[in-house]
C-alpha cells in the first residue's frame, strides 16, 4: 500500500467519528480540513466544542507527524502556536513517542488535537489551562525530559540524550541519574525502549538545542 492509500484508509476511519472533514492533496501533502466537533472529558469536566482545523500530512507520514492549524480564527497568536501558525500541540519528541504507539489519524486527532483544543476551550471558560503547559522553547523541551526520566538535573538529561542520540547503551556504566546504580539496574529499561523507537535523530536534535541554549546562557 502506498502512503496515499494509507492516509485515505486512516481518513475513512477518522470520518466515521468526525464526519465534517474533507481530504484532498496539495502536491504530495495530504490535507484534512473541516470542523472538528468534539466532546471530551477530563477530571469530571465535559467540554463540547467545534473548531475549524486544517491538518497537513507529509509524504513522509507516519515517520513524520502531521501538523495542524486552527483556521477559524479562535485561537490567538499568543497561545501555543509556532511562528508559521501551526499549533504547538506538544514537544515534538514526546509527540512522536506517543504517536508511535498508535500511528493513525484518528489517534492523532483525539490524542493531540482534541486535548489541545479542550485545553483552549477550558481556558476560555475557566481562565486557566486544565493540565498546565510546557514553557515555550528550550525550557519546554527540558521540562519534558525531566518528566520522562524523573530527574531534575540538566546534566543527567544531557548524558541520557548522549546515549540515546548515539545509540550507545552500556548497561554496566553508572546511570546518569546520579543514583550510583548501574544503568541496567536503573534507567536501563526506559533507555532501551526509547532506543527501539529508532528516533536517535530526534534525541540528537533536542540535545543540540539544549546544549546551544546552555552555552548562550553562560
Amino acid at each position: 500500500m502506498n502512503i496515499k492509500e494509507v492516509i485515505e484508509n486512516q481518513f475513512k476511519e477518522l470520518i466515521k467519528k468526525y464526519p465534517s472533514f474533507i481530504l484532498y492533496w496539495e502536491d504530495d501533502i495530504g490535507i484534512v480540513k473541516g470542523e472538528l466537533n468534539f466532546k471530551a472529558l477530563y477530571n469530571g469536566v465535559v467540554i463540547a466544542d467545534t473548531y475549524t482545523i486544517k491538518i497537513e500530512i507529509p509524504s513522509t507520514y507516519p515517520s513524520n507527524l502531521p501538523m495542524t492549524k486552527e483556521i477559524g480564527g479562535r485561537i490567538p497568536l499568543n497561545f501555543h502556536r509556532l511562528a508559521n501558525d501551526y499549533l504547538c500541540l506538544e514537544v515534538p519528541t514526546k509527540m512522536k513517542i506517543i504517536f508511535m504507539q498508535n500511528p493513525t489519524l484518528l489517534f492523532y486527532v483525539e490524542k493531540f488535537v482534541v486535548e489541545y483544543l479542550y485545553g483552549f476551550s477550558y481556558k476560555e471558560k475557566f481562565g486557566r489551562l486544565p493540565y498546565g503547559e510546557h514553557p515555550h522553547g528550550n525550557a519546554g523541551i527540558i521540562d519534558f525530559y525531566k518528566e520522562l526520566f524523573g530527574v531534575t538535573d540538566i546534566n543527567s538529561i544531557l548524558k541520557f540524550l548522549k546515549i540515546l542520540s548515539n545509540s550507545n547503551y552500556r548497561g554496566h556504566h553508572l546511570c546518569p541519574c546520579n543514583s550510583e546504580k548501574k544503568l541496567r539496574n536503573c534507567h536501563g529499561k526506559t533507555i532501551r525502549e526509547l532506543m527501539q523507537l529508532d528516533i536517535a535523530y530526534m534525541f540528537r536534535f533536542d540535545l543540540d538545542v539544549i546544549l546551544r541554549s546552555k552555552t548562550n546562557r553562560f
Partner: protein
Amino acid sequence: MESINKGLIFEEIGKQLDISPTMYKLAVERYTAVAEYLEENDLKAHFYPQGSFRLGTVTRPIRNGIESDYDIDLVCQILVDKNNTSPSTIKNTVGNLLRKNKRYKKILDEEGRRCWTLIYAEKDGIGFHLDILPSIRESIEIIESLIKEYNLAPRYAESAIAITNKNKIDNLYNWESSNPNGYGLWFDEINKSFYDLVEKSTRKQIYENNRDIFASIDDVPPQLIRTPLQRVIQILKRHRDLRFNGHKLEDDKPISMIITTLVSQIAKNENCLTTDIFVLLKFIALKLAQYAILLSNIEISQQQYAVIKRDIYTGKWYISNPVNPAENFADRWHENDNRKAKAFFQWVNWVYLDLIQNMDKPGFDINSLKNVLGNNVVEKANAKYQSLLLQHHNDCMQSSSLSTVNITSPGKPWG
C-alpha cells in the same frame, strides 16, 4: 448553542430534489415497456439511460418557476452499421414505430431536434418526459481518431455513438457524435471513491424507508444510492434553476453538462474525499471561484489541469468534454461580450453567498434557503431534518451524541 449539521440538511434537500425510489421504479417500467414494444416490432437495438438519470444526478426541473415533470433520457442504439443507413432512416424508424402504437401516439410530442419525446402524466401530478434518442454506433474511423488524435482512453472511445440532428431551417438530417455511455463511465470512476464510502449506510437507509418496494437490502439498485458528489451536483443544478428564473441572464445560465463536468473534474483533479455534502460543496465552490479571474485577466498563466481555460489570443473559453476532447462545452461563452461566461461566474458568486457564506454564519436560518433552493423542497427537508434530530441521536448529527474522548495523562501544549 446547538450547531446545525449543514451536511445533513443538504442530504435531505438532495432527497427532495431527487426522484423517489417509487418514481424511479415507475420510470424504469415505462422505458422498459417502450424498449420491449420497439423490439417486438423488429427493431434490433440496445436501450440504456443517459444524462442525469444515468448519472444519478436527477434534479426535479423548474419550468417557469414551478416544479415540473422529470426528464428521463433513453438512448435507443440501433444495431446497424453507419455505412448502411442514414440519419433520417434512423430517426424516422423509431418515430414511425411510436406513432404506430395507439398509446404512444397519444403521448408523443412534436418531433425534436434529436429525440422523440413521450409525455407521461402520472396520477399524483408528477410526470415524466421520456426523451428517446435514436442512434447507432459511431464509425470505426471516428472511434479510432478519438483514440489516436485526441488521446482518448479506448474504454471511453469505444462507446461513442452517432446521433441524428434535424436542421430547423431545411428539415434535413445529419449525423452528430455523442458518447453518453463513455461519459457515464468517466463519471462513475470519479464517483466510485465516494460511493464506496457511503454505499453501505445509504443502501440500508433506502431499504428501511422503502420496505414496501424492496424485498431485501440487496434489492436496492446501486442507481438509487447517492454520493456526496451527486448531491452537490443536484443542489447546484437546483440553485441555478431558481437563481436564473426570470433573470435577464436566464438564457445564458450554465447548462447541466457544464456543472456536472466541472464539479466532477475538480473532484478528480483534487482527488478529494468526504462524506459531508456541505464540506464538498464549499470545497468545489471555492475552486470554481478561482477561475473568475479569467474574466478580467486573459493573460494569467493557466495550469495544465485547469478545468476552465481561455485562449490568450482569441479570448475563447474552453471546457472540454472529457470523453470527446474535440467538443467544447463553452464554445459560445465569448459571444456577446462573454455573456455566458459572465452568467456562469455570477452564478458561482451566488453559490458562495447563498450557500456557503450564508450557511457558515452564526445563527444561520434554514428558511433562508427557500428562495434559492425552493420553498417546498426546503420546507420538507427541514421537517425531515428536525424529526431526525428528535428521533435518533446518531453520531453524525450533534456534539451531544458524539462519543466522548476521555482525556487521561494529557499532554501539554508547548512552543
